[in-house]
């Protein structure tokens, strides 16, 4: 099972894990990105995520296809949440299932890194001092 979605509701990790898994896969690797309480030394209250949803989903599906070709993963799910998230809430979950653990973890890293570099998603950090700032984490450049 392969799926990539932008979602607005809280991410249900257990459900994604079940979705990616299959009886032939002995290894499931999961990455969860959560909103940190500080960034670059500034106290953060939350992050407002927005996305160009159609393009982000297209790009994330392409990334799953690449991971499938490179690492022969049997299952892969990416969910990225949009909206205002509080500290500790999950913004991104990636789940990979594979018969063997090293491939599962290699594929996980690939998908997480590529999604952060390429998916058309943006974040506006809300600081404890009341200010807000757009975070420039990626280059935004096509591969």
């Amino acid at each position: 099972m392969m799926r990539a979605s932008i979602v607005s509701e809280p991410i249900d990790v257990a459900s994604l894990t079940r979705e990616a898994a299959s009886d032939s896969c002995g290894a499931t690797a999961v990455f969860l990105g959560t909103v940190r309480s500080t960034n670059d030394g500034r106290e953060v209250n939350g992050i407002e995520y927005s996305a160009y949803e159609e393009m982000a989903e297209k790009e994330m599906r392409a990334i799953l296809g690449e991971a499938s070709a490179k690492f022969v993963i049997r299952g892969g799910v990416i969910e990225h949440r949009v909206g205002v998230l509080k500290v500790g809430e999950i913004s991104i979950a990636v789940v990979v299932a594979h018969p063997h653990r090293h491939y599962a973890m290699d594929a996980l890293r690939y998908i997480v890194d590529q999604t952060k570099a390429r998916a058309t998603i943006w974040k506006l950090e809300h600081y404890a001092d009341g200010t807000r700032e757009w975070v420039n984490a990626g280059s935004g450049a096509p591969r």
Partner: protein
Amino acid sequence: MTVTVRLFASYAESLGRSELSLDLGASATVADVVNAIAAMPGASRLPPAPLVAVNCSYAVTTTNLSDGDEIAFIPPVAGG
């Protein structure tokens, strides 16, 4: 032709809107949309050559447009 322009994140904030329609002449290219947006109030905060996607694929300024195309201005991404 009529195309839809979509703006996101800091670009939408700079221009005060996230979506608009543009009427363009026949044989219009991405450059025509970039020029039209650059003439709008607030556009000075956009880079001179912003990344643009046409129908969810990255495009260059010479990419030809068709009626109904969706042209998106893509700020530096920061997901995760």
